[in-house]
């Protein structure tokens, strides 16, 4: 354990030192608000693609997915299919237009059509809610990881992450975030390849032998079919809809299209990101079933009650321990930590921009603010977001991060996506329709999640949920579109600045 702590500790310190150095270098290059928010709009397509993959491959993709294979088998792949489907849709429906219309944030895209302040307010609220929920997911993964490796209490662990993320964003802005994401994406990919190779070597390079062994390790149910958790067809369809469309509303992903020089680079970004994310999902199949076959039957990774040490999110870490001992475990843990830190930085960047640029400068001050003051607000906003995420994550610390991510996607698919899609493709959308659609989707998703099993039962401790389905998207997404359509039909006043 001491060896592990020292090895993991050195990896952790090394990564933090490297990324802080990068942040300081980036900070010197930030001379304007455009540099801070969008890295000057000069990031090449391939670099942005790797950073996009880094933004997207979060704690849920690494820790949560392997944990879900271990506990629920094939369900993890059901999640992966939906989330990957979002990438081509993002390219075909949004990427180029976002680049063409956007300036600093998603709200700027809508502001090109609607000058009403309430539309910007709606988009900002929506962005902040999604960002905060997504941040909670990352914090849960980070907290558990550090708790397991160093024995730090959960709250101390997430506070450490919060402090680092505030440093990255407030000092380095989007350029530092981009570089950190790239390094992290490549590290994560290397780690995934090493682990998958280790698993396959264990089974003479044969995936068929691996699947046989995984099936033998879990004889009670068919691990290659959806589990009992996906037994309800409405829940499955709702999950699929939320996962597929959720990507198209994630602020930290959409903001990345504002960092490239043109639409061609925006398209290339998505191709790179889809390839990398898809490759990682394939590696995850090997890792997940490898964990099922190797970690699941091994008593050393379970407590007296038979539960996995550190919870199901730690399956990949235990797999690394089994394949390569303490050193590989420490390396994988450090990469997982880097993953979380980088994603958290990207999310905080999106959230802080929404607060400083949209809420403060354009909504509160009703126009261009002093650039220095706006950036100062952004830095304070990063701190506030960090604190909020740390505290809120304590409520959700015992839930699977992949499942929690599904809920974040559902909020995104219900609030941001419908309004953006209609704004980019439907001339008939009015400011009133945008406001109605966005707010209806956001409130419906939040209320249904609050009344559903995750919060009503999992957090508040009630025996039965008020809303029976785990994912709200099947209801909240159509409601948002309906409200946007109805609001646009019933418009009575022209869209003017207020």
């Amino acid at each position, binding site marked *: 354990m001491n060896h592990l702590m020292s090895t993991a500790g050195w990896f952790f310190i090394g990564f933090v030192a490297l990324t802080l150095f990068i942040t300081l270098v980036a900070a010197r290059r930030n001379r304007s608000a455009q540099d801070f928010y969008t890295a000057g709009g000069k990031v090449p397509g391939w670099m942005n693609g790797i950073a996009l993959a880094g933004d997207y491959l979060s704690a849920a993709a690494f820790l949560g997915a392997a944990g879900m294979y271990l506990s629920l088998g*094939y369900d993890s*792949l*059901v999640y*992966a*299919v*939906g989330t*990957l*489907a979002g*990438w*081509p*849709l993002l*390219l*075909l*429906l949004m990427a*180029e*237009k976002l680049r*063409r*219309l956007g300036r600093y944030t998603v709200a700027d895209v809508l502001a*090109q*059509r609607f000058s009403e302040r309430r539309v910007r307010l709606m988009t900002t609220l929506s962005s902040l809610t999604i960002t905060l929920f997504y941040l909670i997911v990352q914090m849960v993964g980070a907290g558990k990881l550090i708790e397991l490796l160093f024995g730090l209490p959960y709250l101390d662990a997430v506070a450490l992450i919060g402090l680092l993320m505030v440093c990255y964003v407030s000092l380095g802005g989007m350029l530092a975030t981009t570089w950190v994401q790239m390094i992290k994406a490549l590290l994560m990919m290397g780690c995934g390849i090493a682990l998958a190779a280790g698993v396959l070597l264990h089974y003479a390079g*044969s*995936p*068929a032998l691996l*699947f*046989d062994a995984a099936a033998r390790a879990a004889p009670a149910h*068919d691990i*290659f*079919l*959806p589990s009992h958790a*996906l037994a309800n*067809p*409405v829940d*499955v*369809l709702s*999950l*699929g*809809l939320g996962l*597929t469309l959720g990507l198209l509303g994630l602020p930290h992903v959409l903001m990345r299209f504002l960092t490239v020089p043109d*639409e*061609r680079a925006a*398209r*290339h970004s*998505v*191709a790179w990101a*889809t*390839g990398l994310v*898809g490759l990682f*999902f*394939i590696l995850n*199949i090997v890792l997940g079933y490898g964990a099922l076959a190797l970690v699941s039957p091994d008593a050393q990774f379970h407590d007296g009650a038979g539960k996995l040490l550190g919870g199901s999110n730690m399956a990949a870490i235990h797999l690394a321990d089994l394949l390569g001992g303490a050193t590989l475990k420490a390396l994988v843990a450090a990469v997982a930590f880097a993953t979380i830190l980088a994603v958290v930085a990207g999310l905080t960047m999106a959230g802080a921009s929404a607060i400083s640029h949209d809420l403060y400068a354009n909504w509160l001050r009703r126009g261009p603010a002093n650039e220095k003051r706006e950036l100062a607000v952004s830095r304070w906003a990063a701190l506030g977001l960090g604190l909020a995420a740390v505290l809120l994550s304590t409520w959700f610390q015992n839930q699977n991060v992949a499942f929690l991510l599904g809920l974040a996607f559902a909020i995104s698919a219900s609030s941001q996506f419908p309004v953006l899609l209609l*704004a*980019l*493709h*439907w*001339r008939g*959308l009015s400011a009133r329709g945008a406001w109605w659609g966005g707010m209806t989707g956001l409130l419906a998703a939040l209320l249904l999640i609050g009344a559903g099993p995750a919060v009503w039962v999992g957090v508040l401790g009630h025996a039965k949920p008020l809303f029976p389905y785990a994912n709200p998207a099947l209801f909240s997404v159509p409601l948002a579109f309906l409200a946007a359509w109805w609001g646009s039909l019933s418009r009575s006043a022209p869209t003017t600045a207020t």
Partner: protein
Amino acid sequence: MSVTRISGPLLACLVGLSSAAYYGVVAFAPGWLSGRIAGIPVSIAVALGLFLLFFGVTLLYSLAEAADAPTEGDPR
């Protein structure tokens, strides 16, 4: 390689329908995913096929030159 502008919506439909069909099978007929092909579970082979389709669509469109022109009927 040339992909015309009309391909965009068609490709989006292809991706959307494929995803809908997959979740429809998972929801209503998960048994269709049982069995094996060359030692690989059918459910995994189907997911891998979809991964390939999604990446293929993205690659095809991103390499297209025709899409560089501004979109006609841009709602802006």
